[in-house]
């Protein structure tokens, strides 16, 4: 092999190795365990160790579990693995006013700590929107959505 060809060969092999490693990150299984948030069942599987440290917990708001405080300044609900009623769930007590999109059945990520009574205390709640975008159903208009919204908010 001439030096030039050998050079190019080494270069090609090195680039292939780099691309292979990147592809392994992409399509290998290692991404599965690298979590940005835990699902309720994953957190419960931690047992004792989940008490104390700040954790991100993600899942769906279990339908029928939302309890508002009188002033709507805090909210209690259960975060479940999935929409199925039998899936694992954790009680979350959130002291922050949730974003407007918060509702039963929507995906949320809460950041906080689990205390010994299995209540997850959270000060940061994020609503997770899916990648689905649909217009409102027939005959509905966003303007009609308001409940007891004041005039000021309505004008916007």
């Amino acid at each position, binding site marked *: 092999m001439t030096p030039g060809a050998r050079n190019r060969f080494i270069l090609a092999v090195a680039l292939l190795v780099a691309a292979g490693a990147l592809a*392994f990150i992409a399509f290998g299984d290692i*991404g599965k365990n690298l979590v940005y948030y835990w699902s309720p069942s994953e957190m419960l599987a931690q047992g004792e160790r989940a008490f104390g440290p700040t954790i991100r917990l993600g899942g769906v708001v279990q339908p029928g579990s939302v309890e508002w405080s009188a002033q709507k300044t805090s909210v209690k609900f259960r975060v479940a693995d999935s929409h199925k009623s039998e899936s694992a769930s954790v009680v979350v007590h959130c002291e922050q006013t949730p974003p407007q999109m918060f509702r039963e059945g929507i995906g949320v990520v809460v950041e906080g700590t689990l205390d010994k009574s299995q209540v997850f205390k959270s000060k940061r709640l994020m609503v997770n929107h899916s990648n689905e975008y649909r217009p409102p159903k027939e005959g509905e208009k966003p303007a009609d959505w308001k409940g007891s919204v004041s005039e000021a908010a309505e004008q916007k």
Partner: protein
Amino acid sequence: MSASFAIRPIGLLRAAGIILGKDLLIEWRTRARINALVFFAVATLLLFSFALGPDVDLLRQNAAGYMWLGILFASVLSLSESFRVEAENATLEGLKLVPTDPRAVFLGKACGNAVMIFALCLILLPVMVAIYDVSIAEGLPKLSLVLAIGCLAISAPGTIFAAISANARARDVLLPLLLFPMLVPALLSVVKATALVLQGDLQDSLRSWLGLLCCFSVIYWALGFAVFPKVIED
């Protein structure tokens, strides 16, 4: 020896080994670099605990992160030093004249830097155990493995960028500016892996983080190996 140099190029690995040995020998003769590094890194670790106050739980929880930040800051010094040494007597020019693949220079230098940073890790370890009050839950062999791969992940891009910034203006600004963002993915996974080794790994996610770290190291080394001749050519 010199005769065989003139007749045929020596093998890549052998040349790399010679350069590595040369770097380590220079270092061993004065031990100036490692002393400065250890002092700097220990000072950083202490500063973290001073800045955060005597909250033992907090320190123990974040020990891995602090340790790697200390190592990273110290390694920037070490990396720029490794090329400054060559620049002083224009010995890099000499290295370029050696009839071997310039990639050997990369391999030798990067291995030398990795050894250096790993030595720093090993010295730092007992310090960290003492001042952050951590215990090594998963055992020392596993921890050394994580540390070693972490050092490899730092040294390859570090060597490339140090070679670049050694000749640029404002090199003290440029090296961290290029290196730190590049290292974030590797740093993230090595800190996570170290924390798992220190605090125990219940979910069996150590292998994932370690795998990610290995992948990044491989990418950095392969790319560095491929492009280094371009970096030092004239």
